[in-house]
């Protein structure tokens, strides 16, 4: 992804450019493996009366492939293991893992497979793909913002909203919002 951005950035890099944009496609293109140690997948669900339920997944895997010639042919895939959900409250974690929400015992993986990547700005892109959870698949969109690229490590800030009701996880609505706000930092290591 980001062929044009990176091409532009390569020229502009001669002047003073922010580090994040000063990336040439030839440098960025390639395959990356998401490193869980330096990545995070956080989520937040608003609740009535203010505040929300915040949590994160500690176990996930994925890959990012940036196409050398066509950003649109780039790909992002990731798999989340819902068993690893953590909210800081063990009772809530147990509830989320149970068949009330993730049913982690029977559906141990939540998968995202990108179907298209579109540039939306100098360092941003819209990633469309198919999200599968609890046996149900729906198209979802995520916004990716390039954080940086150096020494074979690429970094993205990915955000998106997912309606949990579609995946059979509508428990607690309307007390808890149907919208899950995802906030991910994905760091890929080349190779």
């Amino acid at each position, binding site marked *: 992804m980001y062929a044009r951005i990176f091409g532009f950035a390569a020229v502009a890099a001669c002047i003073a450019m922010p580090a994040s944009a000063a990336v040439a496609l030839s440098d960025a293109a390639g395959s990356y493996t998401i490193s869980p140690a330096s990545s995070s997948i956080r989520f937040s669900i608003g*609740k*009535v*009366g203010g*505040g929300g339920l915040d949590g994160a997944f500690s176990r996930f895997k994925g890959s990012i492939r940036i196409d050398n010639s066509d950003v649109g042919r780039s790909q992002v895939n990731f798999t989340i293991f819902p068993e690893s959900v953590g909210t800081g*409250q063990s*009772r*809530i974690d*147990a*509830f989320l893992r*149970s*068949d*009330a929400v993730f049913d982690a015992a029977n559906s141990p993986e939540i998968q995202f497979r990108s179907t298209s990547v579109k540039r939306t700005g100098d360092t941003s892109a819209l990633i469309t793909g198919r999200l599968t959870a609890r046996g149900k698949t729906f198209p979802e969109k995520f916004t990716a913002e390039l954080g940086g690229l150096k020494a074979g490590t690429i970094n993205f800030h990915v955000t998106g909203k997912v309606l949990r009701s579609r995946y059979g996880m509508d*428990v*607690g609505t*309307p*007390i808890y919002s149907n919208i899950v706000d995802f906030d991910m930092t994905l760091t890929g290591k080349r190779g």
Partner: protein
Amino acid sequence: MSASITNTSTRYGWAAIVLHWLIALIFIGQFALGFVMVRLTSQRTAFELIQLHKSFGFLLLGLIILRIAWRIGNAGPALPRSVGSLERRTAPLAHFALYAFQLALPLSGWALVSVSMLEIPSMPFNLFVMPNLPLAESDAAESFWAAAHWYLAYAGIALVALHALAALRHHFWLKDTVLTRMITPSSDRDME
């Protein structure tokens, strides 16, 4: 002849009767719901039933406040003359205890959800957000109020059973009007 809303010196008005039976029904239903909801294996059903229990709890609290206000503003009928002196002295205490439990049960439940570390908002019947009581959240406070709510529930239902047995005794053994006057409202005819 038409049913009267207010109590007379010998009979209850329909307001007191409706409040009595409505609260009785919800109170017993709440006990059954509370008993079941903490014994389910389905966490989803448990969550939903707990929210329903909270909804009915807040409804109960509103009805009880209304009932106590009604009772204060509208004295109940006197006991029939046939009632003995011991019962004449203990009945008001039993009724005071019943009112105290009706008030303490929903309040202790409200305290429990207010101090819970789970911070699950209360939204009675999904209609509006009920604020929490101004109590500090902690695991210790949650355990305390959970225990308090549990003991109050069992003591309360025991008191309700005693109350029901006393009413049946009046009806079938003493054959007085104590039970029937809580079923048939006072009418214009009663008010001389």
